């Protein structure tokens, strides 16, 4: 009975999200002209069909899963879609709809393939190597450089960002590895420079994996992903061991890395300079232009925005990817962006709740790690476009234009849904066996 009520409340919320999405696209189209309305209708229709299909599918395979994950992903997705469509109704808009469809298909496939998430931990080393391998591909001659960062591979007409999938593989590896050895890592068995540190035997593989991924990302000039991966690693290590000394050590490493980056790479220096003084006349026409335009857009938006389709957010370079939030900031104002932030926070809160309730160490770490990817990534880019932190380019989950990003986010929520379903299926820790016997008798 509880299962049905969960799926029903999911359906209700999903309907509401789709109504909001329809409204957003309709407003964008109407602001252009009435003919566009007819062109936008099939797009939102297709998205609605995909989402309704997904929730019907959940009734079959994950009845007990958390009812908020899918609707919250949907609202972020449709708001992003409206912004992308608003910027480019002819090319990016329809492409984003196709990628949403592909993403939801991946969501379904992952839920079918991963019937039991605990089995994922068996493939931890394979997934770890696949993750590092995916990160390395763009650094080889296969990769293409776009906007100063070498992150893409081109297959025919499509360009794909393997790093987006690599994140998921590496988090699964970390969760499995840490779940297996969290006691060993929490115990300090040797001493180094006055600190109690765990054996290198247990810690070694982690450091190697971490070092390789960071080195690769640095080489590809992907600052956003380096920062993201560094933070996820720290978060998961802390959750597994509950030892603050790791966090302190990690932060020390971070500041050391940031300092080296600042002195060695000119592009890091420029980011910091434009962050400190965005209106510096030496940079405002080139390196600082993007950030300055983003701030102008947010300022133009004010409290209620200019209305969808009525601003000029297209002035911001890369508005459809990294700066999608500023587009909505200009047209929906503080009220609109606050609503979006609440949705992000709710999704993170649900993810952490799934982590807290998960029955296995692996499940807890995996859910926390996946939620950390989502939450930290959102913070990094939102703080970047609002000039709270130096800008490091990274996509805004579910909202930015881009196939690889959408795909990996749908896989991410599929895993969260799977974990939450399995948690509700097994009522209490030691109770499982008894319940099964009792149920049969």
């Amino acid at each position, binding site marked *: 009975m509880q299962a049905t009520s969960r799926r029903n409340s999911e359906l209700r919320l999903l309907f509401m999200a789709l109504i909001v999405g329809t409204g957003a696209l309709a407003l964008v189209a109407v602001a252009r002209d009435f003919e566009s309305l007819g062109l936008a209708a099939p797009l939102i229709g297709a998205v609605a069909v995909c989402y309704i299909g997904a929730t019907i599918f959940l009734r079959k395979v994950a009845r007990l899963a958390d009812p908020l994950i899918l609707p919250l992903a949907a609202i972020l997705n449709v708001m992003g879609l409206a912004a992308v469509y608003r910027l480019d109704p002819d090319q990016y808009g329809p492409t984003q709809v196709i990628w949403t469809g592909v993403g939801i298909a991946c969501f379904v496939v992952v839920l079918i393939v991963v019937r039991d998430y605990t089995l994922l931990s068996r493939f931890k080393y394979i997934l770890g190597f696949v993750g590092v391998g995916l990160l390395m591909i763009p650094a080889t001659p296969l990769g293409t450089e776009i906007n100063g960062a070498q992150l893409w591979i081109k297959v025919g007409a499509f360009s794909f960002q393997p790093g987006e999938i690599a994140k998921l593989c590496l988090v699964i590896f970390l969760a499995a590895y840490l779940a297996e050895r969290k006691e060993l890592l929490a115990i300090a068995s040797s001493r180094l420079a006055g600190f109690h540190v765990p054996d290198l035997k247990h810690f070694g593989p982690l450091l190697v994996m971490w070092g390789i991924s960071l080195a690769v990302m640095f080489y590809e000039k992907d600052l956003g992903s380096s920062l993201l991966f560094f933070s996820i690693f720290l978060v998961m290590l802390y959750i597994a061991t509950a030892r603050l000394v790791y966090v302190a050590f990690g932060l020390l490493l971070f500041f050391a890395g940031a300092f080296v980056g600042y002195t060695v790479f000119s592009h890091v220096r420029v980011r910091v300079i434009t962050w400190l003084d965005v209106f510096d006349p030496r940079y405002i026409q080139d390196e600082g232009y993007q950030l300055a335009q983003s701030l102008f857009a947010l300022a133009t938006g004010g409290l209620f925005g200019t209305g969808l389709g009525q601003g000029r957010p297209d002035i911001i370079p890369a508005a459809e990817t990294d700066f999608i939030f500023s587009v909505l900031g200009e047209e929906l104002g503080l009220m609109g962006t606050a609503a979006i932030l609440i949705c992000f926070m709710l999704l993170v809160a*649900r993810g952490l709740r799934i982590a807290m309730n998960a029955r296995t160490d692996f499940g807890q770490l995996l859910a926390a790690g996946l939620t950390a990817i989502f939450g930290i990534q959102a913070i990094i880019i939102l703080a970047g476009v609002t000039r709270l932190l130096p800008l490091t380019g990274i996509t805004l989950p579910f909202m930015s234009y881009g196939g690889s990003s959408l795909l990996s986010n749908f896989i991410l929520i599929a895993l969260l849904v799977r974990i939450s379903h399995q948690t509700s299926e097994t009522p209490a820790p030691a109770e499982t066996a008894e319940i099964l016997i009792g149920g049969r008798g």
Partner: protein
Amino acid sequence: MPDLVLDLLKYVFLILLYIFVARAVRAVFLEMRPATAQSKTPIAHAPARTAPPSRGSRKAPRKAAVIEGENLRGKTFSLDDDLTIGRAEKNKLVLDDSYVSQFHARISPRGETYVVEDMGSTNGTYLNKRRLTAPAELQRGDRVKVGKTVLEMRK
């Protein structure tokens, strides 16, 4: 389209967006306490047995004894007042167990009998190995399980 209409639609859209947010927040709260709605339903008998109510009052327990659980084993609690069970310090029986919710379950007198009810816990309360879905009447010998702790009803 006239600017005035577009301006109006802008506010309508923001209201729509916030209706979604409000509903999502409401769903979060409803998820957090699934059993509170059920506590209004009439009291069911202990699921494991079907004793007539007259026997219930005669065999009503007076005390709850901890028979499984880390450092509380052997302790007994009187049932004369409400016995609240949970992780929060305010409970009468405080359990330091990550599978126990802050305010997990309550055993309280109702007429001549005692009733156990789940307070909307995450991991559920078990009466004789069955998960409680509604408040249930207790009899001697019944076992109530909360997290890793098991209480037995005694005279």
